[in-house]
């Protein structure tokens, strides 16, 4: 974590404090002097965006809790009370509900950025796995949050998803009863989901700290996927990354505001404005958009247990990506074959999302099976093989060289293909 400069407080009181707890030095080395690669593009602003979105969800969530009533008789009414009678309650709720979607949009971009530029490779495996854990925690948090307004979709999504655990042999039914706190989704379920929905974001916060710590130990990857070699390859975090991240964040907020102020219910399901009714199953039970690809995988497998296993496996496989990818080159910029497969994977995931919203019948099921199979083939077959059959393009000798070349339009430097790995 050696920065361009170190923190030397001039103020006496500050210096006194710093000798006892060097917290300002830590902040300074992490967010001011911290060297960031010179060639980062805007896909690198999403980490900062995610951090801000977490704070947005925490702040709006904590205020919503002040007015929310976690009972089956009171939840729906209390959300309407927030929307109508609480000062700017509509704003809080629309920010929180759409904020969850924006959070997932950002995390999906962040994950695919990592896949494209090989950010999961040595030495960033732990950083990547912490990211997968964050993704899982986010999914659990968002799922339980969606249950809270206690509309029809809240109730039936909770029923469908908790029921998945009944697929576990022998103990499945007992587990489901335990999760529900009864023999169906009911008030005990709502209350425990509420408690956990409040808790998990703070767990996320903790894991984010580890994630950032791991990042600052190994340093950021960059679009060329080569290691930082000298001071010429980096710029200090402040002002360079700070101003660039801020610009990215504000552009992201424009999209966010578009949803919150103009089409706040665009991403929601109208059935969730119907109070939960255990006696009436909606014609189609669909999760929020960000779960759709996984929902498609779940329903693509003809057996319930198989579907559940496939769904969890589709996330678990990400943990192993650092070892499944056998290529020595990180960035898809220099991987002509991998680059094509990357885009196919993206299209397949979007296709799965589309299928997740469709009823599980006829051609939709067949298509979902094909795409599910492809999803796993990508990670388990294509990714390991590519490292052996692909000839990477020559890598630039250094980050600064690649930046200067791009901006001066100079002819390509004939850097040999080297292994950029394992040399710190």
């Amino acid at each position, binding site marked *: 974590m050696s920065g361009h400069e170190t923190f030397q407080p001039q103020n006496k009181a500050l210096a006194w404090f710093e000798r006892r707890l060097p917290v300002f030095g830590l902040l300074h080395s992490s967010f001011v002097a911290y060297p960031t690669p*010179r060639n980062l593009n805007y896909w690198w602003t999403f980490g900062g965006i995610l951090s801000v979105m977490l704070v947005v969800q925490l702040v709006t969530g904590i205020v919503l809790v002040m007015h929310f009533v976690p009972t089956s008789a009171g939840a729906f009414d209390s959300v*309407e009370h927030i*929307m*109508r009678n609480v000062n700017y309650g*509509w*704003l809080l709720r*629309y920010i929180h509900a759409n904020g969850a979607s924006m959070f997932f949009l950002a995390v999906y971009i962040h994950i695919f950025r990592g896949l494209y530029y090989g950010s999961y490779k040595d030495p960033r495996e732990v950083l990547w796995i912490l990211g997968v854990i964050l993704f899982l925690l986010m999914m659990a948090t968002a799922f339980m949050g969606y249950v809270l307004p206690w509309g029809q979709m809240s109730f039936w999504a909770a029923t469908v998803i908790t029921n998945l655990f009944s697929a576990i042999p022998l103990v499945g039914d007992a587990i489901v009863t335990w999760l529900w706190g009864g023999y169906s989704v009911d008030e005990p379920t709502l209350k425990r989901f509420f408690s956990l929905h409040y808790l998990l974001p703070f767990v996320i916060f903790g894991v984010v700290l580890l994630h950032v710590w791991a990042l600052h130990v190994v340093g950021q990857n960059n679009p060329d996927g080569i290691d930082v070699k000298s001071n010429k390859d980096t*710029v200090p975090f402040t*002002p*360079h990354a700070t*101003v*660039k991240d*801020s*610009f990215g964040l*504000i*552009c992201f*907020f*424009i999209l966010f*505001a*578009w949803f*919150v*102020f*103009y*089409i*706040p*219910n*665009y991403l929601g399901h*109208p*059935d969730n*404005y*119907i109070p939960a009714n255990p006696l009436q199953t909606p*014609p*189609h039970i669909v999760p929020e958009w960000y779960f759709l690809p996984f929902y498609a995988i779940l329903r693509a497998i003809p057996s319930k247990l198989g579907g559940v296993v496939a769904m969890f496996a589709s996330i678990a496989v990400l943990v192993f990506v650092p070892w499944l990818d056998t290529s020595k080159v990180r960035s898809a910029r220099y991987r002509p074959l991998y680059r*094509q*497969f990357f*885009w*196919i994977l993206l*299209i*397949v995931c979007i*296709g799965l999302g*589309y*299928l997740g919203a*469709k*009823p599980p*019948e*006829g*051609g*939709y099921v*067949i*298509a979902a099976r*094909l*795409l599910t199979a*492809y999803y796993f083939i990508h990670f388990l077959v294509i990714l390991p093989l590519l490292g052996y059959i692909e000839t990477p393009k020559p890598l630039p000798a250094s980050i600064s060289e690649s*930046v*200067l070349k791009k*901006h001066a339009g100079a002819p390509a430097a004939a850097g040999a293909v080297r292994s950029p790995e394992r040399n710190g």
Partner: protein
Amino acid sequence: MRKLTVALALLATVVAAPVLAAEVGAKPDRQAWSFSGPFGMFDRAQLQRGLKVYREVCASCHGLKYIAFRNLVQPGGPGFSDAEARAIAAEYQITDGPDDTGEMFERPGRLSDHFPPPAPNEQALRSRFGGALPPDLSVITKARSYESGLAIGLLDFFRQYQEHGADYVYALLNGYEDPPADVEIDGAQAWNRYFPGNRIAMVPPLSDEQVEYTDGSPQTVDQYARDVAAFLAWTAEPHMEARKRIGFQVMIFLIVFAGLLYFTKKKVWADAHA
């Protein structure tokens, strides 16, 4: 490139997959609502007429439990004066209590009261309609929608179309027709083009000249349906006008701020690229 072709072929299978016919009603037409779009606002006179239709027709079967009489005065709504809203409230008898002797009693409504329910409880209401339940209408325009397909759905993001619920309510009230010849229907039900499954336990509630308008608007089913649908769009989203107004200010702020940041960024990074 070959891989891309494969991917596109896969995608084509997906899109060409047979469309499933679930129990859905006909697709409502879109209406030109005054409150649609980024600057769309409610038409006060229309909301007042819609309230009249609700009170004189729908209220006998449908509740409006999230709306209090004080909401009628609130900015961004039908724009009644305080005195007018008090007068409307006073026309209702509200059950209050218990009093000092433990008895419930009736008294005229006040601004803080909500519109009273059409029946003391759900069972009482259902028993009037052979088990069917007339839903509370407070959020009905957010609780109903219709499928427009992927392309139109994406387009709606850009043109900010959110008025599907109002389209549906308007269409439903105008959607009564004779059932097909081979269909038997008993007197407690009616045939509606737009209702999922077509058999609806709400017999046509509106007829021409039923509600008296004092502002010269046509006294037709079509106009009543339009007005009450607009009114219900307001009850579902009473802060819509504030939302769009603040939204515009926020947008201007964000765009200007983004512009300033963009040029700051260029300046800061100028040396980093040299």
